[in-house]
Structures are given as structure tokens and as C-alpha cells.
């Protein structure tokens, strides 16, 4: 095809694959933050304190309706203005973790709301503590309806990691940019980045669907 150079492709492939490890680490770390923080944001909206519910709702809306790349810049540059220096990795993980926590909190909220009210009443009647009610009764039932959304955002966070390149996190896109500006060849690095993303995101999406079906079967829900 046109000007495609295979020797160059094989020369840069190891470098790109090494950067892929960084991309996967960034996605994994960001997702871990998002999964935990998202649950906090979802539960914070279920307390009896109206003001807290309202404040968290607005925060989630704000994070969801503004661009991630701008949030990354914000977290990275605002710290130093007040004397807090964040490494690109730290700033990137905070920004991407917070962004996806907002999305995941919506997924959890939907899952929690799908649990019938009778389950709460039954737990109350059985004199279960609130913690026990959540962990033994509510969350196991809220999980399966949340899994599809959680899986989508796992793939989503992976596909958003290239934005971390703007503050210099050495992930896949950053490496492709570096190769491009060293060699003045953009065709191979950018195409390879696309192929690597496809090669990871398509099987992952398929695996998530299999996993979701498996969990539903385990819990006797289908």
C-alpha cells in the first residue's frame, strides 16, 4: 500500500508494544480509582442528607458534561499554581479516575435503584444492619444490571488514555507522536496505534459480554 515500509514497521513495533503496557497500566489504574470512587459517589447520593445528594449530583453532572482532556489540563496545571506539583502520571490518573467515577456512579445508581423496595423492607424486618443489608442483600442484586455499563466504561477508559499524552504520560499515543516527529513518518505509527487499539478493545468487549452472561447464570438470574 502506497508508501508503507515494513522494515520501519518492525523497527518501531517493539517500542509501541512497550508503550501499550503503559497504556494498559494507565487504563487499569484509572479504572480501579473509578470503580471505588464511583461507588462512593453513588452511595453519597443515597444518604438522608438532601444537601449532600444535591451537591454530589451537580458534581457528577459537571464532570460528565465537560471534556476529559480539559479536566486533565486542569488537574495538571492548577496544582503548581498553588504550590502542589503533580507528576503527569498522578495528575492523569486523578483526572481520568474522577471522570469515569462520575460515569460509573450513574451505572451503580441505576443498578441500586433496580433492586425492589421489598428487599430493603425484608432486610429491615430481619434486623440486618445497614452494612450487612448493602453487602449481602442489595449489592449482589445491583451488580448484574450494572455489569454491562461497567464493562463499557472499562473499554471506554482504555480508549480515552491517549488523551493522557497531552501532559506527557508516555503511553501509546505519546510514543507514536515521538516516533512521528523523530522520523517524519506518520503513516506507520498512527496506523499501528489504531490496529493495537482495535486488537485490544474488540476482544475485551466480547469477553465482557461472556463474563456478564456467566455472572447472571451464577446468580441464577437468567
Amino acid at each position, binding site marked *: 500500500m502506497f508508501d508503507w515500509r515494513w522494515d520501519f514497521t518492525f523497527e518501531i513495533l517493539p517500542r509501541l508494544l512497550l508503550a501499550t503496557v503503559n497504556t494498559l497500566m494507565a487504563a487499569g489504574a484509572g479504572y480501579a480509582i473509578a470503580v471505588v470512587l464511583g461507588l462512593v459517589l453513588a452511595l453519597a447520593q443515597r444518604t438522608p442528607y438532601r444537601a449532600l445528594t444535591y451537591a454530589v449530583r451537580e458534581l457528577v453532572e459537571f464532570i460528565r458534561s465537560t471534556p476529559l482532556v480539559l479536566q486533565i489540563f486542569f488537574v495538571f496545571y492548577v496544582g503548581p499554581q498553588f504550590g502542589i506539583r503533580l507528576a503527569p502520571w498522578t495528575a492523569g490518573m486523578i483526572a481520568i479516575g474522577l471522570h469515569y467515577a462520575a460515569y460509573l456512579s450513574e451505572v451503580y445508581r441505576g443498578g441500586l435503584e433496580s433492586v425492589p423496595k421489598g428487599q430493603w423492607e425484608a432486610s429491615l424486618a430481619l434486623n440486618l444492619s445497614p452494612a450487612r443489608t448493602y453487602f449481602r442483600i442489595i449489592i449482589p442484586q445491583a451488580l448484574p444490571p450494572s455489569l454491562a455499563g461497567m464493562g463499557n466504561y472499562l473499554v471506554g477508559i482504555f480508549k480515552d488514555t491517549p488523551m493522557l499524552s497531552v501532559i506527557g504520560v508516555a503511553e501509546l499515543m505519546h510514543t507514536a507522536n515521538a516516533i512521528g516527529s523523530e522520523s517524519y513518518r506518520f503513516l506507520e505509527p498512527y496506523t499501528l*496505534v489504531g490496529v493495537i487499539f482495535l486488537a485490544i478493545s474488540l476482544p475485551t468487549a466480547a469477553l465482557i459480554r461472556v463474563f456478564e452472561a456467566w455472572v447472571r447464570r451464577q446468580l441464577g438470574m437468567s
Partner: protein
Amino acid sequence: MSYLEFLAEFGPRFVDGSVVTAMQTVLAAALAIAIAVAMGLMRLSRSVPVRWFATVYIEIFRGTSLLVQLYWIFFVLPLFGISLEKFTAGFVAVGMNLGAYGAELVRGAILSVPKGQWEAALALNMSPAKRMIRVIFPQAFLNMLPPWGNLLIELLKGTALVSLISVADLMFESKQINSTTFLSAQAFGTALVIYYVMSRFVITPFMRWLERVMARKMGRA
């Protein structure tokens, strides 16, 4: 420098940037809707090659990142003789990406139209095109409006990436202001608030209004 002085000095640049962002959003949305309808219908085609083409398009654009697609369109396409100006490359990339997501919404909405509607249109001897245009699509359109609201917000957010190929949008202006003044909280904070206002107080109310109007037109208000 107080925040008011900051706004007085840089306000016009935020306005310029917002106008470019709005233009990118409208153009990208038009392209995304056209692609979504075309690909969504092609996914339901009876012809295998047509269905395959749409599936491959959707999987490629949903399986890779918008940023990768944007760079590919801007830096690699010229090697194939297709040079797009940065402004055009920007909204084309965003539109093509979100169009792939929209295609699945179109497909789902069309499939959600009750089977009886298809059968009734067949019984009335409507041609397939007429059946789709007059009976199926209007009902599907109403069903897919709520998820399209979310998709348009994603699209607005996606346009922020065009700043990385130097389109002078809101994101780009705020980055420039940050690098000359080092007032990061003000520069990026203001841009964040403008994006928030655009999605929460422009796109969302517009979509709600459109849903109401369409529901009335379909006699479902």
C-alpha cells in the same frame, strides 16, 4: 489580577473560542446524524456486503480512540492525497466517530418499532422506502431522541480534541491563555464552566424541547 480583570482582558478570546466550538459541534453533529442514519439502515440491510461494510465501519470507529482517528485523518490521509484543512479535519473526525455510536442507536430504535407496524405498512401495499420514511422511521426517531441527547454531549466534549491539531476552539484558547498568564485555575476553570453551560443549558433543554415537539406531532403527548 482579580477574576473580573481576567475576564475583561480575556473574555473576548473565550467568546471567539466558544463560537468555534459551537461551529465544530453543529457541523460534527450534522455529519454524525447523516452517518448514523446511513450506517444504522445499512446494518439492517438484507444484502450481506452492505451489512458487512456498516459493521466494519462501526467496529473500527468504536474500537479505536477519537484522538487516534483525528491524528490519522489529519496527518496520514494527506499521504493518500486527501488533504483536509485543520478545521475540516476536526469536525470530520468527531462526526465520523460519533456517527458510529449513533448508528447503533438508529439500529436499535428501528428494531424497537413493533412488528405490527411493519405488517400494517405491508398490508397497505406501501413500498419498502415509503414504509421506512412514513411509518417506521418517525416512530424510531421519537424512541432514539433521549439517548441522542447524551450522544450530543459526548460530541461537544469530543470537539475539545480538535484543539490538539491547532483549531482555535475554546480548549485551544484556554490553553493559550494559560501559557501566557500561568493563571491555570482561571483559564481552564472558565473553559470548564462554558462547556458545562453549553451542554447543560443549551443541548439538554434543546433535546427536551425536541422530544416534546416530536411527541406532540406523533400524537403521544
